[in-house]
């Protein structure tokens, strides 16, 4: 098993960890209450004072913070540190409305570098490595996050940023990059282009990849590892908390180690906001325990996952979170069953020959929800016999029902008529008139 960057922080005993978390939580809650008018107002409204936090469990008394509140604070309303202490700004773009603005002090940048160093080390990066950083540099946190972490380790960073695939491949070959960092979907794009440019990925020096900033699946990991000949690991993070590095997979590749000494995680029900116990699947809520620039108290990430405690085979004791399987924004409730479009997509992708384009339409024609999934009748699904097509349709229906637990109707539509996956294609059409 590979090295551990910060043994002291990553292998804490449960009691030590809780003690540290409680002290830090008490501090950050007091700090946020005193420095950010928004928190003072919100805590007062909930009738809770910083001194009420006597145990970790007391965090549940505090109100949640959501993206809407951060937007309302545009541009600097959430800043706790005075402007002269802020050394860097990042924003998280939304598809609608104003961006969320986060400020970083020197200590915050150090914190970010630390968690990224821990993450890259988990993926197998050492100071002898060459990191080809193909995350975008800029207001987006991906590029600089990896950059700071690699610098802290002392690895060689190639700050190539996103895009320019031809050049990425050339550099990969000529500079002998050993670690690739980018979004998982970009890796497959790289693999396609390598094939066209006749660059043999097997002959390259790549050994590991740190992929994140979007949802992906185990099936995709297999595909990436097979095509790029490297060990693909999953990284998680978000600008509102710090950027990438909140959690990362170790070599065991069974869950992401969440940096609990710095971020306190909870899982809640997206419906009634009650706190779930360990192992239950729900929305991840994070509290930054030491962040100075923009402290976050109980931030609703909208990401759906679950948490597991216990010592990992790699020796770390930090809590592990599962791969993100959906967004609570996208959550659908159909005939009382909670369904995520992403799990329908996952089931669809398991069917050979099916194009990854689909449309989900929900209607309520007779007091009962009906769900229809449209998929394209691609060449590989096509048969000139109606009954074979019917069979294909039924097979898809059965497969989705088995993995999602919901009976639905599949409709075959003509090729290239469904929204493509580039960008944020709208795929779910809820036509029930309930609201």
């Amino acid at each position: 098993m590979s090295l551990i960057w910060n043994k002291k922080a990553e292998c804490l005993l449960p009691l030590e960890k809780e003690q540290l978390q409680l002290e830090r939580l008490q501090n950050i809650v007091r700090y946020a209450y005193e420095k950010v008018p928004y928190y003072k107002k919100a805590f007062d409204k909930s009738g809770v004072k910083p001194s009420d936090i006597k145990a970790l469990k007391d965090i549940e008394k505090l109100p949640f913070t959501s993206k809407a509140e951060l937007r309302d604070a545009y541009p600097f309303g959430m800043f706790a540190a005075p402007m002269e202490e802020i050394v860097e700004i990042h924003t998280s773009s939304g598809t609608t409305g104003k961006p969320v603005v986060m400020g970083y002090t020197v200590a915050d940048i150090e914190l970010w570098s630390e968690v990224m160093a821990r993450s890259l080390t988990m993926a197998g990066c050492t100071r002898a490595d060459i990191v080809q950083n193909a995350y975008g540099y800029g207001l987006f946190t991906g590029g600089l996050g990896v950059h700071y972490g690699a610098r802290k380790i002392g690895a060689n960073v190639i700050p190539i940023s996103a895009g320019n695939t031809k050049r990425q491949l050339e550099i990969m070959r000529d500079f002998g990059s050993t670690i690739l960092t980018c979004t998982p979907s970009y890796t497959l794009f790289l693999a396609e282009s390598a094939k066209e440019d006749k660059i043999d990925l097997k002959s390259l020096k790549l050994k590991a990849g740190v992929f994140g900033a979007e949802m992906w699946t185990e099936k995709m990991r297999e595909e990436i590892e097979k095509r790029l000949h490297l060990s693909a690991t999953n990284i998680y993070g978000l600008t509102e908390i710090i950027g990438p590095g909140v959690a990362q997979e170790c070599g065991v590749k069974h869950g992401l180690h969440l940096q609990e000494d710095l971020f306190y995680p909870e899982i809640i029900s997206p419906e009634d906001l009650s706190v779930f116990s360990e192992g239950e699947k729900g929305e991840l809520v994070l509290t930054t325990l030491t962040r100075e620039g923009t402290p976050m108290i109980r931030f609703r990430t909208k990401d759906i996952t679950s948490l597991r405690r216990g010592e990992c085979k790699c020796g770390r004791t930090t809590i592990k979170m599962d791969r993100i399987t959906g967004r609570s924004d996208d959550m659908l409730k159909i005939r009382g069953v909670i369904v995520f479009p992403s799990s329908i997509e996952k089931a669809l992708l398991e069917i050979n020959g099916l194009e990854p384009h689909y449309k989900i339409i929900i209607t309520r024609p007779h007091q009962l929800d009906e769900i229809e999934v449209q998929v394209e009748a691609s060449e590989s699904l096509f048969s000139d016999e109606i009954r074979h097509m019917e069979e294909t349709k039924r097979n898809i229906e059965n497969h989705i029902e088995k993995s999602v637990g919901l009976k639905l109707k599949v409709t075959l539509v003509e090729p290239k008529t469904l929204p493509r996956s580039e960008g944020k294609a709208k795929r779910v059409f809820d036509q029930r008139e309930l609201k």
Partner: protein
Amino acid sequence: MKNIKQLSIFAENKPGKLEHITKVFEENKINIMAFNIASQGDFGIMRFIVDKPEKALEAFKKAGFTISMNEVFAIEMEDKPGGFHNVAQFIAKSGLNIENAYVLIEKDRQGALLICDIKDTEKAKKAL
């Protein structure tokens, strides 16, 4: 009896669909000699016998359709009362399983062809 090429096109059951397909034929100057529509709920398969099947295949692929081409059997029938019955009798005796069948009237109107889609090609070749 002869083998001819048949095109099968996937189509959703939507208004204007047939017109969209015939437009591709027209634009590529392809003559439709016979056709048949099999539909089932929300989609269907349209089958065509045309004068330039390869050209049509390419044109439809280019237009973004899901299309396939296969060989079917064309059995000559006398274009007179009882002509179809004779052929049907013959097929029944040979024990062939016909997926789909439709009629193509030849230009001179001297005879008609029964287009038979038979998946067990070898058996059909022997029997016919």
